[in-house]
């Protein structure tokens, strides 16, 4: 993947971004599938929203890891934009209409249950996708390798 022309989104700083995305995807997927499997009837909307958010994080993780290919780059853009809109919308609604969100979702309270990582991550993702966009000279996604390694 690293031999493609487009700057890779999974190299350099992207390694860390994909790692954090992966951890959040795993946490959200684990928690929401547990909620859906054990107590879906309690709050179907909230738990299905959590599951949807988790799937979007999984897509973002995979797409950013494979982001050197145009198709995956587009998928990464889509997933990250959905996350940004989701966390802002659900975050705001959970404050103005708390009754809708009696059960926590990954995006409730702007992701406070996850240390606000869900609030910060999509914007870092947007910046990184823009930063590594194709056609940019001297991709900084692959900084000079330390020779001492």
């Amino acid at each position, binding site marked *: 993947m690293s031999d493609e022309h487009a700057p890779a989104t999974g*190299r350099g700083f992207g*390694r860390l971004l994909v790692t954090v995305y992966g*951890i959040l995807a795993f946490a959200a997927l684990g928690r929401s599938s547990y909620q859906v*499997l054990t107590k879906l009837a309690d709050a179907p909307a909230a738990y299905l929203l959590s599951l949807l958010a988790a799937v979007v994080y999984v897509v973002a993780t995979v797409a950013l890891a494979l982001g050197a290919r145009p198709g995956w780059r587009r998928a990464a853009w889509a997933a990250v934009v959905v996350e940004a809109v989701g966390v802002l919308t659900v975050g705001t609604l959970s404050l103005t209409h708390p009754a809708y969100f009696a059960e926590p979702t990954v995006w409730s309270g702007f992701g406070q249950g996850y240390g606000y990582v869900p609030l910060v991550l999509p914007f870092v993702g947007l910046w990184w996708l823009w930063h590594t966009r194709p056609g940019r000279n001297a991709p900084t996604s692959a900084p000079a390798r*330390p020779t001492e*390694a």
Partner: protein
Amino acid sequence: MVLPLLFLALLLCALLAGWAAWFVVRDRAVILRQLFGAAAVEAVLVVQAVVAGVLQVQGHAVDGPLFWGYLLTAALLLPLAAVWAFAERTKWSSVVLCVAALTVAFLEWRLWIIWEAGL
């Protein structure tokens, strides 16, 4: 879960995270010896799983799916992060290992809360 194993796991995670953070400062990539450090954390996690399983069979009440889900996540995290980090030969691989070690420490703390909370 027993406290000595929890402390041992937290200590090893802290040491591994500190070691990786030192490599970040030195602008170095993850080395094989650090992966042995991650393996030591894994070994403690396996012992914890065995001990927790025995205690659970002996009657310790715990939210099973939640506890084992967390433990499985903790056990999978370092191997996956190690593979992901090792393919990158810049300091960012050390950042990845550091974040992974800190996350396992966080999961350990959550595991203890879940274990003590019972059912």
